[in-house]
């Protein structure tokens, strides 16, 4: 409470000495962890093999073989050196990039250890990671749209769940995945409209309003599922969007199979990411939206319609969340199951905070959390003795740490969650 952070302080904070030191120590600790947790039990003659092509790729690259122990030591040394530089003089505004790099090195080290003496298809793993990050990133984008305009949205989960149910139902009825997807977007928009009316017009507490929508969505989707979808399988059998490799691009070695051999959801996620980033930070529209979220009174004085801007942002956010819901049924499972979103909407919320309310930051967090998700489902195959539940917990714990300001300070829009009263 007392740690008030204005925009002015934030500029300084990026290079604040405390944070510089914490980061440096963290880099070194990650390096040490690579040595202490992963090297025991490994022998000199072990190697790790990474597959670099999908089975479907035309160009098959030979697998990449690394010496397990020396790779781990190498990664540890690089982390430690980066930590040393960070402690000594700091990376200034590149600190966050360095953090990303070191975390990336650590994860790579983890994989090298996990697949020691075995083979792991790295490209397939990254492809799955990207696919799993779709609902998380889209959820985060939905949250960013709402919260940048000053409306807290914890109902992303409910909107996603509803989108998933509606797309399964409508997709099955029409036997057209596109119409199903459209219905999901509309359903998300309608729920968002309820949230907007409650929190903007009636000035309801926005967390209560979000809770209303979450409870409502769980109830309605489970109700429809129990009454119709489970009874009549024809109503729960939508056509799905399979993988849609992009011609030519998907044949690029490594990048092709990872980025361009996915479902349309991944492509739309990238397009939305870029559009939202440009719209928020390069256009008048975005400036106004952010102004409404930071200082609605000032925005109002300058003639921006605060209420209209917020309505629009929340409904757009709902459409994104509804679209993300479509991913679960049309892009992944091919059917609707009760509460199938399983907290992805809340992880999306976490990714939004983690990414500091920036689209690309949220995408980074989404990929990280998607990786935890993808890895959790492969632990058993790799024969690692870490319970998958702990990996699935990681995003939540990481978010709490970020929120506590240990690594960086999360800074929400100033007027986030505060209803606007016109005078």
């Amino acid at each position, binding site marked *: 409470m007392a740690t008030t952070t204005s925009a002015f302080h934030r500029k300084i904070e990026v290079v604040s000495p405390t944070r510089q030191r914490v980061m440096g120590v963290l880099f070194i600790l990650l390096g040490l962890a690579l040595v202490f947790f992963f090297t025991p039990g490994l022998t000199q003659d072990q190697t790790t093999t990474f597959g670099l092509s999908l089975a479907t790729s035309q160009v098959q690259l030979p697998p990449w073989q690394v010496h397990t122990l020396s790779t781990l030591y190498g990664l540890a040394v690089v982390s430690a050196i980066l930590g040393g530089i960070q402690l000594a003089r700091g990376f200034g505004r590149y600190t966050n990039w360095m953090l990303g790099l070191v975390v990336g090195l650590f994860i790579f080290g983890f994989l090298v250890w996990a697949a020691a003496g075995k083979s792991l298809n790295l490209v397939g793993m990254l492809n799955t990671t990207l696919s799993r990050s779709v609902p998380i990133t889209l959820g985060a984008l939905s949250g960013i749209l709402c919260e940048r305009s000053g409306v807290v949205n914890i109902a992303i989960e409910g909107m996603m769940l509803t989108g998933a149910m509606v797309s399964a139902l409508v997709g099955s009825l029409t036997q057209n995945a596109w119409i199903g997807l459209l219905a999901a977007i509309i359903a998300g928009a309608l729920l968002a409209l309820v949230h907007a009316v409650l929190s903007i017009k*009636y000035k309801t507490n926005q967390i209560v309003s979000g809770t209303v929508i979450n*409870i*409502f969505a769980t109830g309605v989707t489970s109700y429809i599922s*129990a009454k119709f979808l489970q009874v009549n399988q024809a109503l729960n059998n939508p056509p799905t969007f399979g993988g849609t490799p992009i011609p030519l691009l998907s044949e690029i070695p490594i990048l092709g199979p990872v980025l361009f051999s996915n479902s349309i959801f991944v492509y739309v996620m990238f397009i939305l990411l870029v559009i939202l980033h440009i719209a928020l930070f390069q256009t008048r529209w975005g400036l106004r939206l952010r102004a409404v979220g930071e200082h609605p009174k000032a925005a109002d004085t300058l003639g921006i319609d605060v209420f209209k801007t917020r309505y629009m942002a929340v409904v757009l956010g709902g459409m994104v969340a509804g679209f993300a819901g479509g991913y679960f049924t049309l892009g992944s499972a091919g059917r609707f199951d009760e509460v199938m979103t399983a907290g992805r909407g809340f992880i999306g919320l976490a990714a939004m905070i983690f990414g500091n309310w920036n689209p690309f930051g949220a995408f980074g967090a989404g990929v990280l959390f998607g990786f935890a998700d993808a890895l959790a489902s492969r632990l058993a195959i790799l024969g690692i003795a870490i319970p998958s539940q702990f990996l699935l917990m990681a995003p939540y714990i990481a978010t709490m740490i970020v*929120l506590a300001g240990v690594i960086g300070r999360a*800074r929400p829009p100033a007027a986030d*969650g505060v209803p606007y009263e016109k005078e």
Partner: protein
Amino acid sequence: MPDFGKLVLNELNHTPSPQPEKRKRGIPQSVLIPLLAVLTGLIFGAIFIILTSQEVYTGFGQSLGAGFAAMWDVVARSYNALFTGALGDPVRMINALQSGNALEIRRAFNPFLESLVTSTPYIFAGLAVALGFRAGVFNIGAEGQLFIGAITATYIGYKLVGLPMIIHLPLALLAGALGGALWGFIPGWLKAKTGGHEVINTIMMNYIAFRLSEWLLTGPMKRPGSYNPVSPEIQPSAWLPRFFDDPIRFHLGFFLALGLAYVVYWFLFKTTWGFELRTVGSNPYGAKYAGMDVTKNTILAMTLSGALAGLAGANEVLGVNHFLAMAFSSGYGFDSIALALLGNNHPVGVVLASLLFGTLRNGATRMQLSADIPIDIISVLQAVILAFIAAPAIIRSLYRLRKPAEGEGLITIKGWGG
């Protein structure tokens, strides 16, 4: 994060003046609005049932009259099942009493007592959220605290063997309260010390608790020899005693919950600690200037709130299930937000609201069986009721009520930054 000074100004502008509420004639709106919200919720539920019933559409396909008849029929059948399932069938009760058959009497009166059983976790969890609201913290993590409380209570319940009940049961309940308290303390501490918003942190803690339970139930706490992720059976010495023979599950937990409601009332309104907690909740700025420790009170409120939610979990495993499984809670922790608000964050209100929700949920089980209406209709009802409670202006305009002179002062939780 909003500027602290500005936040305080907002607070002062919006906080209702501390004058005593003027006595008005008729039912006060603080009672009338919840009642109307429940009524409107039931009407909304009826519309929802009508819209999703095949019979209605077939009826309208034949003729207008048949359509309306089908509408009436489906709603009457559903709500009849709801109320007899919740409170018991009066005809059957009278017949059972006349026959004098003990088992038949128990069966006839079971629905009513079962409603009390369903209400019990609601009372605990509702008190938890209400206490948080009173202290200005939004504990959206009751569900996670409830899970942790259930885990710790279950562990003490099956691990300790050979204790007399008089020691074992209190110990298991205490374990549940402590487990929940820990899960509430962490976000409370984080809020007080770092400003991390408790809403986000408790949401995160919820999911950490779910994953933790999954891991425990598939690993360390799994029942030996079982294929399902369930814990071993709790020792009978840790069971909350039941008052009647089967099938009646009515147990001591209900009276514990009522007793605790009184304790919470006494604590909040009759003790200095409770006064400080409420002051910090309604006006942290003023509380600080009066020399109250806002940090301490925030942590205290979240810890106590967690303990109450933990007891809700302990109550379920020790009183009803006698073991832990993932599906032991039907979202009591989330529903309790609605309960606290419906009960105006007052222990008496919470108990009444819990009785209502418990009754509805229990009746819905019967409705599912005999009227083919999925039990999830209750969540829809709860969401709608909560929406009307949170936005009383809707109810006022629906029923042409006058706007009260003073502000609402419903909850004073601001955005993320704290």
